[in-house]
């Protein structure tokens, strides 16, 4: 049997009185896109923080492709093939969208020569394609701190993709994106991910997106994985309708 792509075993973490992870067990299989749903404050972002080494759990372990990465710093986990797009986009504000991507390529390729120029790296057209993928070609040369939140989120995803990860973690990827564009972008994104053999985990509040683009769904509640299954099973479950969907539409 092959190892799952990522496996969390018994993760626990608390902030003061708040238990943000209360024995979280979860496996993520290669090629199966997982949606994480659950009310605000359930511990979804905390889970991504632990998986990427940003937070160290007080108990439990994280394995990436069979290797224990619990105590590694984020950069070491990223180097092993995990990339992340954030709930609040993390970009280089003084640089343009294109430059943000070119910097990501610089990091990915680990180029050290001080004489090579970043802008003339051969991956420029590859990055152009990524911008197109997230529908941001028109703002390629705009400083990212002058863009809308929705555009910044999409560029944040493109930056993560520029690293050519095995696993892509996205925290509410389409919040801030106009609902008319959400589906189109997810459509292109999910296809591109499948083509590039990237497995995606995305925290999502829009059940329409979950239904259409997730292979599996995990429901978070008070620091626990309450339930897991296919979108059809989960979205029809009365507890989920009461605790999650009810809250989303309220």
């Amino acid at each position, binding site marked *: 049997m092959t190892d799952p792509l990522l496996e969390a075993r018994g993760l626990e973490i608390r902030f003061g009185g708040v238990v943000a992870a209360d024995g979280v067990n979860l496996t993520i299989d290669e090629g199966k896109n997982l949606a994480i749903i659950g009310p605000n404050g359930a511990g979804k972002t905390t889970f991504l923080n632990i998986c990427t080494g940003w937070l160290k759990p007080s108990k439990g372990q994280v394995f990436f492709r069979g290797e224990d990465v619990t105590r590694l710093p984020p950069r070491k986990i990223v*180097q092993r093939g995990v990339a992340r797009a954030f709930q609040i986009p993390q970009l*280089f504000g003084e640089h343009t969208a294109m430059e943000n991507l070119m910097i990501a390529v*610089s990091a990915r390729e680990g180029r050290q020569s001080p004489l090579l120029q970043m802008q003339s790296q051969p991956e420029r057209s590859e990055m152009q394609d990524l911008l197109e993928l997230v529908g941001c070609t028109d703002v390629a040369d705009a400083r990212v701190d002058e863009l809308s939140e929705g555009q910044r989120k999409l560029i944040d995803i493109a930056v993560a993709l520029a690293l050519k990860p095995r696993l892509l973690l996205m925290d509410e990827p389409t919040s801030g994106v106009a609902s008319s564009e959400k589906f189109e972008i997810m459509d292109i994104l999910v296809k591109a991910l499948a083509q590039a053999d990237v497995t995606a985990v995305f925290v999502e509040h829009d059940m329409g997106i979950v239904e259409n683009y997730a292979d599996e769904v995990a429901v978070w509640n008070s620091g626990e994985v309450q339930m897991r299954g296919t979108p059809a099973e989960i979205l029809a479950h009365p507890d989920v309708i009461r605790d999650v969907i009810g809250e989303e539409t309220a």
Partner: protein
Amino acid sequence: MSTRHFLPLLALLLLLFVPMAAPGLQILLTLALAKAIAVMGVTLLLRAGQVSFGHALFFGISAYAAAFIAATSLDDLVLLLIAGTAGAALSGLLVGLFVVRYRGIFFGMLNLAFSMIFWSILEKFYHYTGGADGLRLPRPTVLGLSLDRAPFELLLFYLTLALTIGLGWFTLRFLGSPIGQLFQTVKTNETRLEYLGVSARTTLLKGYVLSAALCGIGGILVATAQGIVTPSYAYWIRSGEMVFIAVLGGAGSIPGAVAGALAYEIVRAYAAAFAADIWQLVLGVFLLVVILFAPGGLAGIYTAIANRLSRRDPSPTAHSPNEARQ
């Protein structure tokens, strides 16, 4: 090449004729350009959002290294430059390993602390360092040739000018390179940097070593031009002066560092001659005006004027800091 590069290049070209046209300025400009190289080191760190209040440390280390070597039989200018630069870069690596863990005021003050330690060593170990009197740095040979004073100073002027241009070019290339761009993201988002799989500390360290080397080269050139090194080379006032010039020239601009150093030395020389008691006042007011009305410094003023003049030909990358702040 756009018109806005024309004026700075013309100015550099004019500098070529200083020894013939204005020999009285030759020494002053040698010192100013040598300082410009050191200020580039401080400017480089500003691009990563860090201010060092102790970079005279490297200026002093290389100057003393040069003085020690000049006292041996290996007293050749090329050797002084190589050994002094290596000494500054190596100490930059050692100090850097420690200070790159800190940011902002802590980074600035730790640099200051290291420079003060070195300064007191220079003052106290009189037997080796000559204490407050410093060390003489006898005129070295140049590739084995012994030159008289006048040709030596002429050569030093051109060497300093060439190094200013060459190192300025190199530093700009560094800033435009993959590692240089990663280095500058330490200023804007270390979280994303970490999530690109890059260590912010290692990245900052690379730039730090380069900045130390630049300060070191400036220190050797000033020491060779003056023929003496004293603890004042490493004193905090010298560090502060470098930051002052970097801000005056345009915080973060490499050509600005050169413009700032030239302006500073010239204002200082003439203010000292005509208003001996108040030249610091003149410089202080000058800096105040720059910070209040032109936070981009001399480089910012120049870019603004050039933009206004060439509005018919708007720069397509005006949004990008990389273009705007070269």
